[in-house]
């Protein structure tokens, strides 16, 4: 759901204009970034869902630390706290919430593999609404984040350029990059180039 997370980050940028876009994009995939070293060391794993053949929407993800509800909240709080030091409390809160939005979006698409507590302590029921069982619908949700996100970003960028009496070309270029990059990430993901 990488493209969808980026689309959401672009939406937030349109409203919280003081926060750098790169920081919002980083925040939107922060749980996955922390996941990578844990995955490479075998602490967190991915398995194929029954009946799946690999590629988009095919995984059951045992990210029991980074993608547990409490773990995600802690990672979000830490990210927001660090960002609040240079950029102020509001930007820190925004970035922390964007980090946590990753878990919410993953909750929609994941099969039930998101634990409540880190390490799945307590063995509570795992969470996930399972939209990935219908890959076309999951991809549509991602599109519904990427396209409006890019449009809202471009509109905000054009507005600040106009206010500052600067040409709107750079705003158009960045908006086009956000859109085309998001669509490219989604296309590579969905078409199975990766897997």
């Amino acid at each position, binding site marked *: 759901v990488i493209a969808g997370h980026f689309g959401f980050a672009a939406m937030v940028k349109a409203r919280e204009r003081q926060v750098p876009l790169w920081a919002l994009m980083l925040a939107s995939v922060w749980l996955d970034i922390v996941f990578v070293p844990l995955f490479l060391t075998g602490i967190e794993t991915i398995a194929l869902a029954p009946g799946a053949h690999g590629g988009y929407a095919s995984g059951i993800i045992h990210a029991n630390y980074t993608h547990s509800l409490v773990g995600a909240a802690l990672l979000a709080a830490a990210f927001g706290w660090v960002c609040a030091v240079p950029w102020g409390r509001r930007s820190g809160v925004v970035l922390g919430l964007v980090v946590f939005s990753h878990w919410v979006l993953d909750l929609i698409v994941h099969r039930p593999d998101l634990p409540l507590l880190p390490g799945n302590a307590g063995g509570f029921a795992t969470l996930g609404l399972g939209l990935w069982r219908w890959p076309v619908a999951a991809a549509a949700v991602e599109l519904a984040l990427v396209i409006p996100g890019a449009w809202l970003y471009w509109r905000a960028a054009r507005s*600040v350029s106009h206010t500052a009496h600067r040409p709107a070309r750079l705003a158009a270029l960045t908006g086009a990059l956000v859109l085309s990059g998001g669509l490219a990430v989604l296309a590579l993901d969905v078409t199975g180039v990766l897997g």
Partner: protein
Amino acid sequence: VDAAAFHVLPGLPPAWKSDEQMAFIVGTLFFVVVVGVIDTRLPWPRPRRPGSQQ
């Protein structure tokens, strides 16, 4: 987490086993850097630093 970007293979780090997957991850990071750099050139309001009077 996106399973397609972290394809399951036994043994060595899976993401490092496939050129396509590595290219995807590196390309995604490159995309964030490029868009982020261009975005910083736009006249966005600056973050309000703690203790500033802005």
